[in-house]
């Protein structure tokens, strides 16, 4: 991308709250005979953290992969940041790709690069004019911002713990100061303290950087602590979207079981005692 193109990018005036940044309509996905989604609709509004929940195998990750273009759906329309995502070519898609950041479930860090070099990859790709000293500085402060210790930058992913790898993945996802952040089970496999810290980090980053977050999670604490709205995936579609209070008022067996089961009650009680962030 050249410097001239930069003027085409949106400035403040397009960043209205309540604007729809992701819109999924009539999505259908299947693998062979197995239908994952059928007629799935979902909206993500600017400035919110949307939690996506659902039992194992309900296609949460497939939904994310469809939205970010890693999986071509059988049917349906997907719009991200006002652009239609289906059937577009790579050059056009590049403009959108530089406006989002994605944290994969296991970090998906490039194993032959150090953490800081991992962060530099997207920046180098889109902004080759940035000089190496500045690039290194940017990578270091991104690493620091994702809550990694100072000595983590020059380390290789294999030298990091699971929690640190998640943070490194987040640093890479934030490399281009994205508007939109996709997180696939960011707190899975973290200890409760680490998970709470991660929640707090995401909440902080969201407020400071004006992020919109699409968050897949199984972690009830995360849902209570940071999600503005929650979408429930079941029976091949999104059966309900709303705040947890709104969802609790619904008479859907899975939702009741999920939020009112022993773990759900513990998480809500914990939040009410003010033990967690937000």
């Amino acid at each position, binding site marked *: *991308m050249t410097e001239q193109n*930069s003027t085409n*990018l949106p*400035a403040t005036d397009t960043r209205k709250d309540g604007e729809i940044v992701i819109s999924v309509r009539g999505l259908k996905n299947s693998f062979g005979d197995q239908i994952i989604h059928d007629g799935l609709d979902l909206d993500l509004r600017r400035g919110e953290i949307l939690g996506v929940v659902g039992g194992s195998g309900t296609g949460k990750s497939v939904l994310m992969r469809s939205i970010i273009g890693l999986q071509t759906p059988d049917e349906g329309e997907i719009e991200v940041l006002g652009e239609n995502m289906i059937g577009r070519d790579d050059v056009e898609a590049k403009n959108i790709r530089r406006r989002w950041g994605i944290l994969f479930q296991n970090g998906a860090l490039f194993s032959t690069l150090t953490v*800081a*070099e991992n962060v530099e990859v997207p920046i180098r790709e889109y902004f080759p004019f940035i000089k190496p000293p500045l690039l290194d500085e940017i990578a*270091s*402060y991104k690493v620091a*911002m994702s809550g990694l210790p100072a000595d983590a*930058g020059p380390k290789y992913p294999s030298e990091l713990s699971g929690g640190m790898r998640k943070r490194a993945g987040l640093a890479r996802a934030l490399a281009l100061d994205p508007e939109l952040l996709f997180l696939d089970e960011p707190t899975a496999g973290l200890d409760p303290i680490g998970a709470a810290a991660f929640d707090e980090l995401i909440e902080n980053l969201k407020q400071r950087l004006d992020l919109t977050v699409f968050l897949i999670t199984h972690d009830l604490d995360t849902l209570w602590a940071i999600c503005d709205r929650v979408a429930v995936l079941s029976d091949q579609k999104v059966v309900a979207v709303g705040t947890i209070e709104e969802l609790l008022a619904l008479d859907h067996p899975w939702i009741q079981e999920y939020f009112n089961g022993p773990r759900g009650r513990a998480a809500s009680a914990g939040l009410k005692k003010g033990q967690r962030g937000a």
Partner: protein
Amino acid sequence: MGDDPTRRDGQDGEDNVYRCVGALTITRAASTQREIDAVPDPLTIDLSEVERIDTVGAWLVHRAVRDRQAKVTGETEESRQLLEQVAEADRPVRVRPEQRAAPLRALEELGDWVADAGNTLIGLLGFLGATVISFAAVIARPRRFRMNAVVQRFDLVGVRALGIIGLMTFLIGIVIAQQGAVQLQQFGAEVYTINLIGRISVRELATLMTAIMVAGRSGSAFAAQIGTMKITEEIDAMRTIGVSPTEALVVPRMLAAVVMMPLLSFYAMVMSLLGGGIFVWVALGIPPMTYIQRLQEVVPITDLWVGLIKAPVFGFIIALAGCFQGMLVEGNSEEVGTRTTAAVVQSIFLVIVLDAVFAVFFSNVGWI
């Protein structure tokens, strides 16, 4: 924004003020940095007309403040927060692991190499020991012998290699015959082509070629399979369940290589003789019956023993190098590739060194 000619970034009236207009974001990081660097000290940065700022923009301002004691004016609450935030994250820059100066590094690398070579040798001995112990354990308690795994390896290492090894040695038989015939015809001694084909195929080339092919096909596969299993923690899972990885993975592969190598070598000898026979029949007019009779006269049975005794040793070396390198894989996926290459290079090298040793040995014991 930047396309409006009346509102541009840059020095505004006074020489020392850098006024930023519109978006101060990563998209314009390179040019903004250049422009800030061009403004002389004492620098003042005016953010009053910034419409949008991201962390990279804030960082550019922050480093000017840090390195040049620049003054910042006209910042909004939002940009002030961002500036504070990036200032918090300011740490000494380290992107790559530290490296020493060149001469020291050369010494360090040499030292590392020596230590690595020593450790590899010790590791190999340890691995050999573990394999022997596993073999002993399997012999002591034959019920732990994994028949299915071994048969599967026999199939992969032996049966599936028949096609390519047969074709390769058949062609090599033809090449030996053709080259030999061309030279020997000059002396009118083309009938000695049969001696050449018989002795060189049976004694040397069939076994050696089979070993090289098995190293390329199976030695590499051993290293890659075991290496991938190490990365995906399958080997650790086996250990914790109580299954010995040496017993489950290494023993079947060793057995397969050691048992299949002599069989494949014998088959390779036959194919090579067949290739040579067809050539002499077609090109020199020597009928097959005469060819076979002459082979029986000129190729001593000891040549067959020489060829077949070497084969299991080569198989053992190939499986040892492959499995050992596979077990050494640690960390990232690139290492699987490196170790697989190392396994093939080492096994072929060792096979050829051993072949030379065998050649001298058998000549000295009188099997000429």
